[in-house]
């Protein structure tokens, strides 16, 4: 009656451990930044400029990953940069997810004119090159955290809308949706109680992917100096500054780049891992 899988607790895979571990580390770093950062991330000191990371000759204690051309500690700046990166990932990712999912569900389940309107919007949106679109938006909205979040939501809701629409269409054709309707469920109720739980695994995978993308978009905007003001350290800003001095001090470019890479990779791997765990059939 109940097959073996039902009683077996599936171990948390290596993928979930590694990606989850890195992200937890980042969250801790972001929360505890003022206490754990070895230096003030904004303190400039020309006597300590371009110090190499700790294993190279000429390294100074307290500057584990070296310092940039203005003498600011790279590790401290990465730790403080995590705050902004995570705020953008969480807030922009969640908002994009909520808006895109709502529109996708409505389009895929109700079909008809709501679908036509939403789908045309998606088509038009997709014709814009996203990065240029973001830069344009920031130029209009002005720089700042809120503008960045708005820009990410505005350019990326289509990703959710498209995928969730397709999923909602497949689920909507299933017999259990028809049964729910025969049982007198209203359409909105059917959408929320029958369809939504079944697209949840996809939503989670997309959400974590979107968080990774939000971090990248923020980094791109920092790279072209359209993110937050230069006094708050951001990974994109560090990469942009590091690029100019890469031949003298490679570490200023490489460490934030590695952090960014690992973060985005972790988000997408976390999504894949969670998707499997949330899938009712695989669970």
């Amino acid at each position: 009656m109940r097959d073996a899988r039902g009683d077996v607790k599936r171990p948390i895979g290596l993928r979930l451990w590694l990606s989850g571990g890195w992200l937890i580390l980042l969250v801790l770093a972001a929360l505890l930044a003022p206490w754990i950062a070895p230096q003030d991330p904004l303190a400039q000191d020309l006597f300590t400029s371009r110090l190499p990371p700790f294993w190279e000759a000429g390294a100074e204690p307290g500057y584990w990953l070296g310092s940039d051309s203005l003498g600011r500690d790279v590790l401290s700046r990465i730790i403080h940069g995590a705050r902004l990166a995570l705020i953008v990932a969480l807030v922009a990712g969640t908002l994009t997810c909520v808006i895109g999912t709502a529109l996708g569900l409505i389009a895929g389940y109700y079909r008809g004119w709501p679908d036509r309107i939403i789908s045309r919007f998606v088509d038009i949106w997709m014709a814009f090159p996203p990065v240029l679109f973001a830069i344009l938006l920031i130029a209009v909205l002005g720089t700042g955290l809120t503008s960045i979040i708005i820009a990410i939501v505005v350019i990326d809701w289509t990703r959710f809308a498209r995928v969730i629409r397709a999923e909602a269409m497949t689920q909507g054709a299933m017999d259990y949706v028809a049964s729910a309707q025969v049982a007198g469920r209203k359409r909105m109720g059917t959408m929320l109680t029958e369809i939504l739980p079944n697209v949840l695994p996809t939503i989670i995978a997309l959400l974590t992917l979107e968080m990774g993308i939000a971090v990248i978009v923020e980094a791109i905007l920092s790279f072209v100096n359209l993110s937050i003001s230069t006094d708050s350290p951001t990974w994109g800003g560090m990469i942009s500054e590091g690029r100019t001095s890469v031949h003298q001090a490679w570490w200023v470019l490489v460490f934030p780049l590695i952090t960014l890479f690992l973060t985005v990779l972790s988000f997408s791997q976390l999504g894949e891992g969670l998707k499997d765990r949330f899938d009712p059939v695989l669970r």
Partner: protein
Amino acid sequence: MNAFLEIRNLCVTLKGGAPILRNVSLSVSAGQVHGLVGESGAGKSMIGKAVLGTLPRALAVTRGEIWLDGVDLQTLRPAERRRRIGASAALIPQDPLTALNPARRIGPQITRRLVDILGWSRADAEARALELLAEVQIPDPARVMRSYPHELSGGMRQRILIAAAFAAEPKLIIADEPTTALDVTVQKQILRLIADMQTRHGTALLFVTHDLGVVSKVCDTLSVLYAGKVVEEAQMRRFFMHPIHPYSAALLAATPSYKDPEGSLTPVPQSVIDQVEREVTDHDRRAGL
């Protein structure tokens, strides 16, 4: 006439014009079992879907009346129609694998109708669901209520769907090929279960199938469908003894028999197919299609 469900001159067309159901009329009396037989694509399931208001988006009822418990459903506003259908009719679907929501536990999927439409309390609805699961011979109902659909076998799921269909004591149940997706040994049990439940609850049953053998076991009356048109409506005994329409006779002759397994099967002769096709074209011409 005390028919619980009466369909008069029902026409369903594909948006764009192609007819799917052609002037279908049939009636199911309270407590009776009416079979709907026909080849695949004859529109058997579409009749059930038209009654329940779950026609695919591309199809629409263009003409005709569907009287359910003395009310013409076609004249009602959608919300009122949905409420009426929900309160008095239920569906036993064809494929138990897609008819239960994979993301939700069994319990709420059975009690849903009781809570939503009849306004029962959750505790009452759950007690009733347990009772019903026991009635459809499911061992350990309490555990099944907490299970997810994928943890159960196809036969179990079909039993659950039967329990769910009877839960609110509907006066009409539409069984859309309820045994087709099951394997042969389970088919027989499920069939007997549906027949038992129907007798015990006194429900009217519209039984859609392509299997004349099944019809002969459970139905009181039947309609034979060809290309969306009712070719013959008959009492069970009369039909098996003297089918009137040549197509019905040909269908009967094409049914394998347990008693004579070596006996050769006669395919429906071309002349008969030509005749029903002609009737269908005649009908379309008269209807101005």
